[in-house]
């Protein structure tokens, strides 16, 4: 029988990656096929239309929508400032005069002769897309972006918050099981991507970001804290143009969970390297996981062929696996066997299971659905 495919979050010292980098709307692509690009290099740029502010000129002037044209001082497409008069009704008696002023700076998009509603569009905002990956442009997507290919180390996370950032990797713990409940005193944290261990509290995360860190990587995080933080980030995004700038990547899951040794070791070995970090997470259909790309100059430091050996992701005896849910969450062990028939587990359910030998030598049945390859 063919062994069961097991998805797992990638942890690779070096691998060949492709990343499609796209603008959210049409714009200008600033690179050509064959160009060498750096992760923080802008490769495409667009102008995001500013918000639309509707308001009723008809009501301000007290005239029927069909007669508005007589009173307009601005025409469609004109630039207007906040507070600038755009329509005026004069009368010999001042009390019967009225004017309509623009509620915001922008462009007059339209005035409806049916409803008397005017639309002002706030100025465009620039949107830029970085290469994110150090490599070569292999294809340009007209008016949208480019496909970049390059070698990098890769750590996929389980959950993240925030958008994308770039910085120098800085481990601030000594072991993967270390918990940070208090903010450590670090001299120079500005623009650094900070790496912690088994857990970081919400307050420590905020302190680190406010001290200038561009991102925090941790094994575990409290789900309650993540829910609160998510709401705060959304609120900031709505209020300010730049929004919340910090990025969080949780490599294992929610709770106090020791960072996988392989992940911890790779990140420690990569201390001082430049990394790209994405906190973007989508758990619904079309799953998007957060990720950390560890950059290196392959012309100076080429990958060895053995580094690039891709292993096929199947559960099979002898493979090291990691438990991703339940009583043994976070523990690694060796897969001993894959019983063919469904096995009864503690809940009473009959499920496809695997027998795993853990570090203490004990063998236990674990649902296959709760395993990923180490």
């Amino acid at each position, binding site marked *: 029988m063919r062994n069961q495919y097991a998805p797992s979050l990638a942890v690779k010292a070096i691998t060949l990656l492709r990343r499609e980098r796209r603008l959210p709307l049409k714009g200008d692509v600033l690179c050509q096929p064959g160009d060498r690009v750096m992760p923080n290099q802008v490769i495409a740029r667009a102008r995001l239309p500013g*918000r*639309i*502010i*509707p*308001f009723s000129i008809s009501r301000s002037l007290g005239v029927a*929508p069909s007669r508005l044209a007589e009173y307009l001082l601005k025409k469609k497409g004109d630039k207007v400032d906040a507070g600038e008069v755009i329509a005026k009704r004069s009368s010999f008696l001042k009390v019967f005069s009225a004017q309509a002023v623009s509620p915001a700076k922008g462009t007059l*998009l*339209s005035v*409806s002769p*049916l*409803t008397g*509603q005017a*639309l002002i569009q706030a100025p465009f905002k620039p949107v830029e897309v970085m290469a994110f990956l150090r490599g070569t442009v292999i294809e340009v997507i007209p008016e949208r972006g480019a496909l970049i290919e390059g070698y990098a180390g890769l750590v996929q996370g*389980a*959950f993240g918050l925030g958008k994308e950032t770039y910085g120098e990797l800085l481990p601030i713990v000594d072991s993967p099981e270390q918990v940070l409940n208090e903010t450590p005193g670090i001299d120079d944290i500005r623009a650094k991507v900070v790496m912690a261990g088994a857990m970081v509290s919400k307050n420590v995360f905020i302190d680190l970001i406010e001290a200038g860190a561009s991102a925090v990587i941790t094994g575990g995080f*409290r*789900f*309650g804290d*993540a*829910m609160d933080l998510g709401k705060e980030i959304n609120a900031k995004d709505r209020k300010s143009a730049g929004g919340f700038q910090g990025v969080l990547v949780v490599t294992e*899951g*929610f*709770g106090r969970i020791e960072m996988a040794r392989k992940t911890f070791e790779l990140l420690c070995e990569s201390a001082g390297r430049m990394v790209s970090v994405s906190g973007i*997470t989508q*758990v*619904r*259909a*079309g799953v998007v996981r957060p990720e950390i790309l560890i950059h290196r100059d392959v012309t100076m430091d080429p990958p060895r062929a053995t580094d690039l050996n891709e292993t096929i992701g199947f559960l099979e005896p002898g493979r090291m696996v990691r438990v*991703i*849910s*339940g*009583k*043994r*969450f976070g523990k690694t062990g060796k897969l001993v066997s894959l019983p063919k028939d469904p096995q009864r*587990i*503690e*809940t*009473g*359910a*009959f*499920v496809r299971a695997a027998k795993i030998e853990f570090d203490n030598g004990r063998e236990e049945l*674990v*649902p296959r*659905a*709760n395993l990923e390859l180490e």
Partner: protein
Amino acid sequence: MKMHNDRDSEQGLTRVLLTDCGSTTTKAVLLEDKGKGLRLSARGQAPTTVENPVEDVTVGVLNATREVEELSGRKLLDDSGKIIRPGRQDIGVDKYMSTSSAGGGLQMIVAGVVGSMTGESALRAALGAGAIVMELLAYDDKRSPHEKVELVRRLKPDMILLAGGTDGGTKSHVVEIAELLAAAAPRPRLGEGYSLPLIYAGNKDARREVESALKGVFEFKAVENLRPTLEEENLEPAREEIHRLFLDHVMAHAPGYNKLMKWTDGPLMPTPAAVGAMIQSYADKKKIGVLAVDIGGATTDIFSLVWTGEEREKPVYNRTVSANLGMSYSIGNVLDSVGLEEVLKWLPVEMDSKEALDKLGNKMIRPTTIPDHVTGLMLEQAVAREALSSSMAQHMEFARGLSGLKRTRTVAEAFRQKEGGAHLLNMSGIDLIIGSGGVLSNAPSRVQAAMMLIDAFQPAGITRLAVDSIFMLPHLGVLSSIDPGSAANVLEKDCLVNLGTCIAPIGRGRHGSHCLTAEIRFENGKVQALDIPFGSIKRLDLPSSSKAGIELEVSKGFFLGQGRERKISTRIRGGEVGLILDCRGRPLVLGSGDSSRRELVNGWAVETGLYDLVDN
């Protein structure tokens, strides 16, 4: 010559292949007539292939069909990988039909002038057509115009339904909404380079102005006003147009669907529309009130068909989808909307709240994992109770008695929609509750599935319970469009697992005081008499194949059905769980105080045999 009987397919079908292309899994079933009408022959499944790297839904369909081939031993695909039709001798099938909710199903924005009137009618039209409604916009909602524009811009719907105004009424409000939609110019979710479809079903006199406001931004389609007068609702033209655009416009941009639509012998149906069709067809055939639920990872759909009128002659169908209530992706929304305390109140054991939150968060980010210990299972099933009851509350709020076809009501009724509609969906009018979705269908014990349904929906009076064990309702729904008899036959024989009957007196009393006397006459002649006090629950074995006579009498202050009966003599059906006599009260109220509440919940769990380890 073969004699026709109830089981024979009305179409003379001997072999039918049906698929449901879900967000993650494509499920194929083969129905075959081996002399007893169409029955389930084999079921196969494969990952849905709408997304990268395959991006062709038909690949998943063929993979699932190959599994069916292997399991049934029938050759269904020819050498070029096409479904063999028409069937001949032992190969191929007579018909192939499919449903789809892949890529998130049909996602819509609906808009109206008055939220509680044309907005609500538009919502009903969209939900009835099988859509997930992302947002309801109304001229009179509390948001400022620029907030509405920002909101529409952020969303990426598949389609917009715009209603508003009665025919001959004010035009400016609906035109104003059209102008806001045009200013927002939302982009379609699937594909690029085409205009988003917008259906206008509002004031017919404003059609020209609305079209002019939307021209160049949307693919504009106008249909009859869905609210031509205040007291009249006409949803069918809008629903038909939604279905047509779903196929011609939305699905045409989804990967591989053009090919799939050429394969099917009938229109591709949105999955929820197919489930709704099956529920309506079955309830209509049996003349029973049905409540069905499908609880998924992201959304929870509730379907109900109840009968109104003195002779129960008028069916009222409603479907709602709680787009943000579910067991994995949407678990955070369940917690946000009800609070962790409401979830933890269902646990018969103590659990640290931070630990509980972390467990639920991990389910959200790794949806395919399963609980491997009893407290984890209890927590997951506690969330299910809250997700189900919140979805039911939304359904009750919405189910206001309009069936969608032309219906007339008085102006006074029109202004009393909430009050009028709320009376139509009364739990004592529900004869059968059908549960579907992983947490119910795959619960380690059927008692757990039954208790989740009972705790969440609080059936009143006498109600049968069942689960759709292999989620075949969509397949049977699409089959019911051509062969309702066969669809009902397969539903009863192969799809539904009878859990049993729940008897729940309506009312509340003093804890420990007498509530119900029951005398049960089993088929083997055994008679069992029970007196059940208020606040307790009792489960008796009564196998699926058997029925029993039962005489029930409740104490003063309680009653047993819509007619406020206090004494009933009837026959009940058994099931894998049996008979549940639930005297915990309607409405069901859990005790206050952590320890007394836990003691109560633990007592019920022990009595019903809910979890193996509870009495430890």
